[in-house]
């Protein structure tokens, strides 16, 4: 069943992001926790796919949320909060990747990112074969994402890990909506071909 956008889950009496931001700015600090609840999963997974490291993804997600809190009064409610949050996250991730590369160059390491696989995904399949299959699948997904050209990778991650709608991705990337859709469809097609062996799992 096709799913709806993650950012459209605020019906049923739930306050919108913008209302939560207004409450925080009005002095209700605890409401920032609701925003953290709402975005932590998407933010950590988005950063994880960019940084390929669980610890780094968690640390940077924390840093991004703290940074956003510090300048919350500069948030412009004419844009979606998620657009702003993921733009900050993307810039922070790019900075971190650049720093990491500089560090690698200075250390003269051969490995692309200098880090091996350091994560374990939840295991829906039990038993030795299941574990092996999970690991293979997780590696294949990461490799497939890494093999995408950067312009496609960014869009795919914003859509599939950040759960952002096309319009917000277009705002973050400052691209026309049609370009975002085309690139997303093409990126998805590329990924689908690389992950063909796992689609029937």
């Amino acid at each position: 069943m096709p799913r709806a956008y993650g950012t459209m889950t605020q019906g049923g009496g739930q306050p919108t992001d913008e209302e939560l931001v207004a409450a925080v700015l009005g002095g209700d600090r605890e409401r920032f926790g609701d925003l953290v609840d709402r975005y932590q999963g998407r933010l950590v997974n988005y950063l994880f796919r960019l940084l390929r490291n669980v610890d780094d993804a968690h640390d940077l997600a924390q840093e991004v949320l703290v940074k956003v809190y510090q300048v919350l009064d500069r948030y412009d409610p004419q844009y979606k909060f998620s657009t702003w949050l993921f733009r900050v996250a993307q810039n922070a991730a790019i900075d971190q990747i650049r720093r990491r590369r500089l560090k690698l160059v200075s250390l003269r390491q051969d490995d692309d990112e200098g880090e091996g696989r350091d994560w374990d995904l939840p295991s829906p399949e039990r038993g030795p074969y299941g574990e092996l299959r999970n690991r293979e699948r997780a590696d294949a997904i990461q490799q497939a994402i890494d093999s995408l050209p950067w312009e496609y990778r960014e869009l795919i991650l914003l859509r599939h890990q950040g759960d952002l709608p096309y319009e917000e991705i277009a705002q973050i990337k400052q691209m026309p909506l049609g370009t975002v859709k085309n690139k997303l469809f093409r990126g998805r097609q590329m990924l689908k071909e690389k992950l063909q062996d796992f689609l029937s799992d």
Partner: protein
Amino acid sequence: MTRPDHDTYREWLNLEVDGCLPAARHAELDRHLASCADCRTEREELLAFEGLLQKNRIPVRADFKDTVLSSLPVAGWENRHPKTWGFPAAVVLLFAGIAAALFGSSRLEGAGGGASALLALADMLGSTVQAGAGLLAATWKGLGLAFAEVIASPVSLGAVAILVISLNLLLLSLLRRRRAAPDGVVRGRR
């Protein structure tokens, strides 16, 4: 009306998976799917792909939210918030009220309560400025006397020089230690 081509249906499939296909096109897509095995396969693969990415999300650490909330500093905008200024403003008003009650009645008896309070407040401020100026003058005078004492004797001059140099060295070592420490808004948990 002409029927969309195959590529258009493929685009619609992507939109459908993303939950963005307009309702009016669902029926037309379903009719096409009923007669096109390739598009049915494409749809199944797109859904499987979406499920694959969802299934392979990493879980967020249980203490993530608490760590974020406990790391939040007092932001600049919080200092400018009316709540922050509420207490000091209340104290100022309280003092103004007390001043008006104590001093306001003797002068401007004919004036209203508000003018009387303002006058009393101005008196109080004037007295405070006078007291501050007197204290400053006394401090300068005291410093001058102390300085004269220090330069009068070579021993006391040497002692002060050693004290100043030691304080500078201490400050330098503290600055160097701070520069060596890793930066970052949030302390990492490894």
